[in-house]
């Protein structure tokens, strides 16, 4: 009501103010003053009278909105308290045990028995085996496994691969093995002296495609006969149990092959990086495997098997990239040139900032893929995205790490040289960059 009244009055006043009549009568000044005063008091009336505020009682304390309840799955990247404790424990192990031994393990091209024994204290093997077989796993936990991989690789990627390879085999048996296969192999993994085990998927050829394997499995009665060459097989010379991917007439399949089987031989091929994993080519020359050793029944998901392996490599890359970042920041803040820390130079600071951004991107893509895998959703696309980014950026972070340390980075006196070689492996594991 008040608004309308003021509105009409103002319209009338404005009309009057713009009229020539005022000038002719010499009344302009007076009219303008009236319009001004009325407008001001009129609006004051509106603002004070149009609304009355009533208190809804006096609560004891101000009301604030809570953070939303846990997990709507979209962009919830929090980890649970247990996962955080696991990370703390694994990282302490990586710091105390893996790091000091990394140089020697790299030089020796193998992870020492003491390190493997020390890693047993973490109980990773029990964590991969269901309770029914003496393990401690009650639910699938790819996310936790990936966090473990990341933190171990933060210590040293080579030794991390040697420690994780048996866990990968146990996880695959738990997820896809049929009742007989589980009963035969899983209890050993939940013992004080778990077997050395490893996976063999990659092959030494251009544009390797895990869906079109050159290693063949030919059916021969109640056996399969495996022929071909596998590359980048961790623990190849010492493993007691292998999971080997080979092409059957019905497409790719995975076979459980025990160490010492006739025709199975580890080649000689010292790799450039992740040497502590003892990875070598694995040569298969008419390896006869009972048909019952084909992993899983009809529900075996080869695609998921390959993609989870890919994501494990992504997690390893993230861990070692984090190690590089954690190393170069204090180094560049302390290393002085031209009278100031080199981090004061933008060329250096930008490189480190890029590293941090790329690392977070790698981590988020990988976590999203693994998170979907854990929830039983399709994660093929997400795994591919994570892999493509990790391959490119992990290598870049490795190179930049060496570059930031300059001449020091090029020597074996600083760990970035080894990290560079390890991260270089990510670019070739599971095929080339441009697959």
């Amino acid at each position: 009501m008040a608004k309308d009244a003021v509105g009409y009055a103002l319209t009338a006043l404005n009309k009057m103010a713009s009229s020539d009549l005022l000038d002719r009568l010499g009344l302009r000044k007076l009219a303008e003053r009236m319009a001004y005063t009325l407008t001001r008091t009129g609006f004051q009336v509106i603002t004070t009278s149009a609304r009355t505020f009533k208190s809804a009682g006096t609560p004891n304390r101000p009301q604030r909105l809570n953070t939303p309840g846990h997990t709507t799955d979209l962009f919830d990247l929090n980890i649970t308290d247990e996962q955080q404790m696991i990370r703390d424990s694994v990282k302490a192990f990586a710091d105390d045990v893996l790091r000091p031994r990394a140089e020697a393990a790299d030089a020796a091209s193998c992870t020492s028995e003491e390190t493997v024994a020390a890693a047993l204290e973490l109980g990773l093997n029990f964590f991969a085996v269901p309770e029914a077989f003496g393990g401690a796993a009650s639910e699938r936990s790819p996310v936790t496994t990936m966090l473990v991989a990341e933190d171990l690789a933060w210590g040293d990627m080579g030794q991390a691969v040697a420690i994780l390879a048996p866990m990968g085999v146990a996880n695959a048996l738990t997820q896809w093995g049929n009742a007989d296969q589980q009963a035969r192999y899983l209890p050993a993994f939940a013992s004080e002296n778990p077997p050395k085990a490893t996976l063999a998927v990659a092959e030494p050829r251009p544009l390797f495609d895990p869906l079109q394997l050159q290693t063949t499995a030919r059916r021969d009665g109640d056996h399969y006969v495996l022929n071909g060459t596998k590359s980048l097989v961790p623990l190849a010379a010492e493993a007691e149990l292998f999971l080997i991917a080979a092409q059957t007439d019905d497409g790719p399949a995975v076979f459980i092959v025990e160490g010492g089987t006739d025709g199975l031989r580890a080649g000689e091929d010292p790799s450039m990086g992740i040497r502590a994993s003892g990875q070598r080519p694995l040569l298969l020359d008419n390896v006869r495997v009972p048909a019952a050793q084909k992993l899983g029944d009809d529900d075996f998901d080869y695609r998921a098997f390959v993609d989870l392996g890919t994501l494990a490599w992504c997690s390893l890359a993230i861990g070692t990239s984090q190690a590089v970042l954690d190393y170069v920041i204090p180094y560049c803040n302390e290393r002085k040139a031209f009278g100031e820390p080199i981090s004061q130079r933008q060329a250096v600071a930008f490189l480190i900032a890029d590293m941090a951004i790329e690392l977070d991107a790698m981590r988020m893509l990988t976590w999203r893929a693994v998170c979907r895998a854990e929830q039983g959703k399709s994660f093929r696309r997400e795994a591919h995205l994570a892999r493509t980014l990790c391959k490119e950026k992990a290598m870049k972070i490795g190179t930049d790490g060496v570059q930031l340390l300059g001449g020091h980075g090029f020597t074996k006196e600083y760990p970035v040289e080894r990290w560079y070689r390890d991260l270089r492996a990510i670019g070739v594991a599971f095929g080339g960059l441009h697959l």
Partner: protein
Amino acid sequence: MKVLVPIKRVVDYNVKVRVKADQSGVDLANVKMAMNPFCEIAVEEAVRLKEKGVVTEIVVVTVGSKTAQEQLRTAMALGADRAILVETEENTQPLGVAKALKALVEKESPDLVILGKQAIDDDNNQTGQMLAALTGMPQGTFASEVNVADGKVSVTREIDGGLQTVELSLPAVVTTDLRLNEPRYASLPNIMKAKKKPLDTVSPADLGVDLTPRVKTLKVEPPAERQAGIKVASVEELVDKLKNEAKVI
């Protein structure tokens, strides 16, 4: 036999602490917290005694904020059986904590209390001794070896110039030094099990103790930065500086 292991949540030993701008204390915003390393050694010792069959139950306890539950869970992942949190938002100080522990000792009647010799945040090195004095229990501080047998505990102590072994009748208070043991890593299965172990929360009022700080912090300052060294050109210059600047010869 029951063991009580008091622990403390402190800034992780890897963290470089910074003093707050108003000099009221150390800046704790976004700083990684962890169990005090000496407390880890105490938990480890209790767990080893349990593995030897000497101890049947390990109760871990802390006086602090709700967030200290994390450290209690860690202790349970390392092998403690259950936990008690005396929840307070007060700045905890040795005497107050010792009083709260005394109340818990009366409630739980443990045969042995093992705790770290000091916390790495304020380095007081008082709580164990105060607890022994308040409860009248014998104390063996700075332990580098602990043996329990026949209702007695023998404690090898690290003292100036050597080792001293004392024998205490139980119940007793033992504080741990660095060389007593090397704590294990919490294993994944034990971390998962820790989730299911009981954690009770009590208030200082429940225990009838007052945790109001008795000591007032006036100012916290970082230590003075060390001056960079210099190079001397000759032995004469060195001797001159030692004589006239450092005044050590």
